[in-house]
């Protein structure tokens, strides 16, 4: 025992470990790490909850599950929220795969929603509803695409920093929507958003949210195929891996960037359309509700794979709904759910390290050297 201690003290390594990149990891092992990290996170959340409020953690998690899937209405609510979050996450994914940090989804969603609301107010009643819905959809796609293209244009033309540019575009969109919300509110200037009657999405089989969910499922499948099997999807991956390689094999990086950002913005526009016409039937500056930012985490945690993202977006919405039930039942502040979500995301982010790298002990090697 003493000898080991000695070797540690005289070791010329500054830390007892060094980091080695894993070549690749079996899929079940990777998922094991993720599951362990979620369990650890839930334990930490439990400890925090007890120390703050004295609530029994088992009871707390039961309340959480009840709050997320307790009634049929809640289940539909859960699915609809997952669908919208997934839709925004799908939107940002092609851009991220290209290493274009589009953190402007919040704004792109809002602008899409604004386009939809504008149609519902000014064109409602002038044309048959199916046509109106089509116009709403097309215009919101266009609006979202334009909002996404502006930063992409400056990135390709002048190499402006896209992370900062898209971030700023969010707040411009938020303020514009806040302006119109007030202008359109009844009575004017009161801040109570107007309920938009004309052009609401129809309820399928008596379920208000079903159409939203179906549309997002279609987008998910298309996006999966687009990224995995299409030529354009391949070009996106190449640009993301190395711009120089892309140039060398004759891909126009600028063209790919503009096209991908247009797609990214367009799908955000669809999310805005679904939120305004399908879910809320009104427009507020918090219609997007931070989903533009949450989507970034969903997409990244889902490894930019649309199918995994179904899981990650479900997990996050489940946590949020569950945690807000906890705060409701135990009369805590609703922000409790943000703390829980934050902690769990930290743990999942941290677990990625152990999936990509492994720690090797330096102790063994120094001993080996001595032998």
């Amino acid at each position: 025992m003493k000898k080991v201690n000695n070797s540690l003290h005289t070791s010329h390594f500054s830390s007892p470990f060094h980091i080695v990149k894993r070549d690749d990891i079996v899929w079940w092992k990777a998922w094991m790490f993720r599951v362990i990290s979620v369990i650890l996170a839930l334990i930490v959340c439990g400890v925090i909850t007890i120390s703050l409020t004295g609530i029994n953690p088992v009871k707390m998690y039961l309340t959480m599950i009840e709050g997320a899937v307790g009634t049929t209405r809640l289940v539909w609510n859960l699915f609809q929220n997952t669908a919208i979050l997934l839709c925004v996450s799908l939107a940002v994914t092609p851009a991220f795969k290209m290493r274009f940090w589009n953190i402007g989804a919040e704004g792109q969603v809002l602008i899409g929603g604004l386009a939809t609301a504008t149609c519902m107010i000014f064109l409602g009643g002038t044309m048959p509803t199916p046509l109106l819905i089509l116009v709403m959809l097309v215009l919101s796609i266009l609006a979202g695409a334009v909002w996404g293209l502006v930063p992409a244009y400056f990135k390709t033309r002048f190499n402006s920093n896209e992370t900062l540019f898209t971030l700023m575009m969010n707040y411009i969109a938020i303020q514009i929507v806040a302006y119109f919300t007030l202008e359109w509110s009844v009575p004017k200037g009161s801040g109570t958003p107007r309920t938009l009657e004309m052009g609401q999405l129809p309820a399928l089989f008596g379920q208000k949210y079903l159409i939203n969910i179906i549309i997002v499922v279609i987008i998910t499948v298309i996006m999966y195929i687009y990224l995995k099997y299409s030529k354009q999807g391949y070009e996106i991956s190449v640009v993301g891996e190395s711009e120089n390689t892309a140039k060398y094999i004759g891909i126009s990086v600028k063209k790919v960037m503009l096209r991908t950002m247009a797609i990214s913005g367009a799908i955000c526009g669809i999310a805005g359309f679904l939120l305004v016409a399908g879910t809320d039937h009104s427009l507020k500056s918090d219609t997007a509700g931070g989903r533009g930012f949450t989507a970034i985490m969903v997409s990244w945690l889902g490894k930019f794979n649309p199918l995994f993202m179904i899981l990650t977006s479900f997990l996050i919405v489940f946590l949020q709904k569950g945690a807000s039930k906890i705060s409701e039942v135990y009369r805590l502040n609703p922000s409790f759910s943000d703390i829980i979500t934050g902690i769990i995301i930290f743990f999942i982010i941290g677990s990625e390290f152990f999936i990509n790298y492994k720690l090797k002990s330096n102790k063994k090697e120094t001993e080996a050297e001595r032998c």
Partner: protein
Amino acid sequence: MLITILQRAVMQGTPLLFGSTGEILTEKSGHLNLGIPGIMYVGAISGVAGSFLYEQSVASPELMNPFLAVLIPLLCCLIGAGLMGLIYCFLTVTLRANQNVTGLALTTFGIGIGNFFGGSLIKLVDSDVPSIALSTTSKIFKTELPFADQLGWFGDIFLSYGFLVYVAIIVAIISTYILNRTRVGLHLRSVGESPETADAAGINVTKYKYLSTCIGSAIAGLGGLYYVMDYANGVWSNNGFGDRGWLSIALVIFSMWRPSISILGSILFGFLYVIPTYIPDISVSAKKLFEMLPYVVTILVLVITSIRNKKENQPPAALGLPYFREER
């Protein structure tokens, strides 16, 4: 009236100045910390919690020691915000996580902490006060410099603020000095421009990243503390801090990564923030469009600097990029 506008602009600008100085230090090490809004909330609530517990422990406001009343919230704020920086650093530097994802998660987490404790602090410590109103502490924080009342407009413009305003300006000036005139600053900038080169030159990249992010976060946290204690008169209201965290990040771009310019920039942003109040007959909705201006101006600066493409006005070259020594 011009004097009042200027005064209010400075007061609006101070949280932004703290936030942007902290973020500049962080970004100079190559880390785009999007957790700043959350960090500022945590800084604010840590200070509030410290001061609340202190006010509760003292029998009556007259017995409070003014020195402790300032020191306790100040330390709590620095520690709270610094710890948030540590979380960010541990995840992005040691565990090599994506900076944007970590930063956004930190913002969610931090705003959650701020609002949760702001809303439940009273319940958690079983106190019987109706709301968190730290008026005594706030009065100490708001103490003006001597002679502020007697020197007319000069006193109003330059001497009439609480001490944190001067701290913000001094911190910005010191940061400028350290970044541009000292060896430590040179090393820090080299870490942000090209970590490989810095590493090869024998600079401890990890150490610089940790220190600059944690110190930067602590400074940004002070912005939150200033907002609650001075601007909001010690009254905590959930989400009262608003989007000032994002505005500070905008201010970083506006000032082209120079703390000295952000002193003036913060006053300009503050000016844009308060100006709608002074326009007669302005509608509530038009006010919203005015609130858009700082972001528009920031985008213009971002575009113009990238068009002019002058080296000294660009973001640090390695901003947002991960650095793994083994993957060079």
